[in-house]
């Protein structure tokens, strides 16, 4: 009886699925975004792998690129000026960087209570370039430049993706236009095969060697700047990566020894017990 019930119930589910299985499918037209999208480039960063560490010089250069280029449009609201001490800036340097930041911090006039602005101090988070989302969209052809605090963790491929995207701008391939005549990049957008739908609103941010003059004298090629800023964004997203790697190595050494001892204890106790 129960086998009968189970068969009736089972055949209900199975029939519904098999009917669905044999339903004809609508033909899916191939799209340019599927055929021409590229995976992130292979690029090595100093923080890759279990022993990886940040390169302080590179992070400082990357910060400089963010400060001089990206921060014109992209906010980074989870990173504070004080955090820059972790990448090798001294306290006075951080203070100077904060007070000289291009946008000031919203404040209240202590005498009148009116809204005003003041210079940033080390405990402030990086001031956003736009007052709000509407202002950001209005200034960017209705596209919203994403906040960069977590960007390197919020995209598949992380810093590798960011590097590929910045260096990946190109003319739309003739082959694409031949195959998909309707997929021409609209005016105001830019073709980039690393971007999910191939057409990104952001114009190429790093276009010329020497766009940033590095304080440490490193030649500022587009490739170098792209790599540096990607590394900086990884640090911004994951500032505790080095602690994590350090703890991880120590914990694993401890655990491997402890597990070895536990195995020895287990074998010893079971020594004469067949099982």
């Amino acid at each position, binding site marked *: 009886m*129960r*086998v009968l019930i*189970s*068969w009736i*119930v*089972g*055949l*209900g*589910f*199975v*029939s*519904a*699925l*098999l*009917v*669905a*299985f044999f*339903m004809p*499918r609508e033909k*899916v037209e191939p799209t340019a975004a599927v055929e021409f999208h590229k995976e992130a480039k292979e690029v090595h960063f100093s923080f890759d792998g*279990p022993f990886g560490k940040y390169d302080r010089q590179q992070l400082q250069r990357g910060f400089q690129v963010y400060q001089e280029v990206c921060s014109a449009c992209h906010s980074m609201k*989870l990173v504070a000026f004080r*955090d820059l001490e972790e990448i090798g800036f001294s306290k006075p340097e951080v203070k100077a960087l904060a007070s000289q930041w291009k946008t000031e911090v919203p404040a209240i006039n202590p005498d009148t209570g009116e809204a005003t602005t003041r210079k940033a101090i080390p405990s402030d988070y990086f001031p956003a370039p736009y007052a709000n989302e509407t202002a950001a969209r209005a200034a960017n052809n209705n596209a919203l430049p*994403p906040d960069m*605090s*977590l960007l390197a*963790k*919020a*995209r*598949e491929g*992380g810093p590798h993706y960011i590097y590929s995207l910045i260096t990946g701008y190109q003319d739309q391939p003739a082959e694409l236009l031949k195959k998909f005549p309707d997929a021409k990049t609209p005016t105001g957008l830019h073709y980039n095969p690393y971007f*999910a739908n191939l057409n990104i609103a952001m114009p190429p941010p790093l276009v010329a060697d020497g766009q940033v003059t590095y304080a440490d004298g490193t030649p500022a090629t587009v490739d170098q700047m792209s790599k540096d800023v990607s590394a900086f964004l990884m640090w911004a*997203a994951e*500032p*505790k990566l080095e*602690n*994590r*790697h350090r*703890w*991880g*190595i120590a*914990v*694993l050494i401890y*655990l*491997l020894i*402890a*597990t070895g001892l*536990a*195995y020895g*204890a*287990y074998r*010893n*106790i*079971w*020594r*004469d*017990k*067949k*099982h």
Partner: protein
Amino acid sequence: MSFPWAENYEPKHPLTKWIDAKLPLPRLVYNAVGAGYPVPRNLNYFWNFGVLAGLALTFQIVTGIVLAMHYASTADGAFASVESIMRDVNGGWFLRYMHMNGASMFFIVVYIHIFRGLFYGSYKAPREMVWLLGVVIFLLMMATAFMGYVLPWGQMSFWGAQVITGFFSAIPIVGDPIHTWLLGGFAPDNAALNRFFSLHYLLPFVIAGVIVLHIWALHIPGSNNPTGVDVKGPQDTVPFHPYYTAKDGFGVGVFLVVFSILLFFYPNTLGHPDNYIQANPLSTPAHIVPEWYFWPFYAILRAFTVNWLWIPAKLWGVIAMFSSILLLFFLPWLDNSPVRSANYRPAYRIAFWVLVLDVLVLGWIGKSPAEEPYVRIGQFAAAYYFAHFLLIVPIIAIVEKTKPLPNSISESVLHGEAEEAAPIGVGSAH
């Protein structure tokens, strides 16, 4: 309190005598996980996973309690509070990554634990209650994990909550009011986030309670074993302590090594990048994907694409997804074979491995976008899932010719050889 076949506890020290007379807690420990609990001597490493699941729950509760001290359950503040834990709380990144990956570890060990039970017939008489309580724990875990994933209020949190709570709107007629009532609004927002936080904090303790019942029910018949043959006498067992405490100690070590590799070196590998973007009700992610441990069930949900037998496709999907777990409650009575262990059931053994493969395929489909060929593969795999439990297993139980069972556990272990003396200091096993 004692278990039917536990050894009698005899306190020796006056203090333990005094305590045992007032509160027989030492007796309970001795009988439950001490030298007084005889366990089949032939358990393999798959029997480590119950203890590991308990350990994983403990980690989740401990890290979760500390995280809750720093977390703000408001739609405006949740995302930032999680990031402040990651950046500004001392060791906060460690707590958060441990909690986040601890959930994955919990599901990994529980899935192995469940499949262990399926292979060795641990759900069969006399252990049906152990199995039923186990399925209850699994359901509670799924609810807890789902609500926990909503708390960081990232994009996948929000849209996952949108999809999962949307199940209730599939209920005919009253679906929409129930959906609104459960969420406290028309879409997930502050009200939903707060109740999820409250329940996410509550349910782990409910799980702990059901685990007590699960272990209690286990101790009535005692553990199953790889032969599936009942314990016949003291030569078949060893005391839980020190034999299995030692073996579990090693198992815990291996578990911690795997957990640490994940936590310290690949903390975001099992997560979805979109959850590092703050929830935005106006922007739907390209693909809404649940956490990996829900992929097989998500595949079953999405496999139903046609209205069939006057039931709409969406309702079919929801019913099937819940049924795929609820049918486990009936398994002890669907599988009528008197032989427990698949080692002596050649046909069931093949069906078991096909099921494992099928669930892996479903997981892969659940992760993949709803496009061809994935949808079709998913429909076939989902059909097989139901066929396994509802059509194949009941028939195998009737027609299968099983292999001869060993007379006893000790016979299968010793092959007629004599037992050797126990090592010095451990004492005689029986």
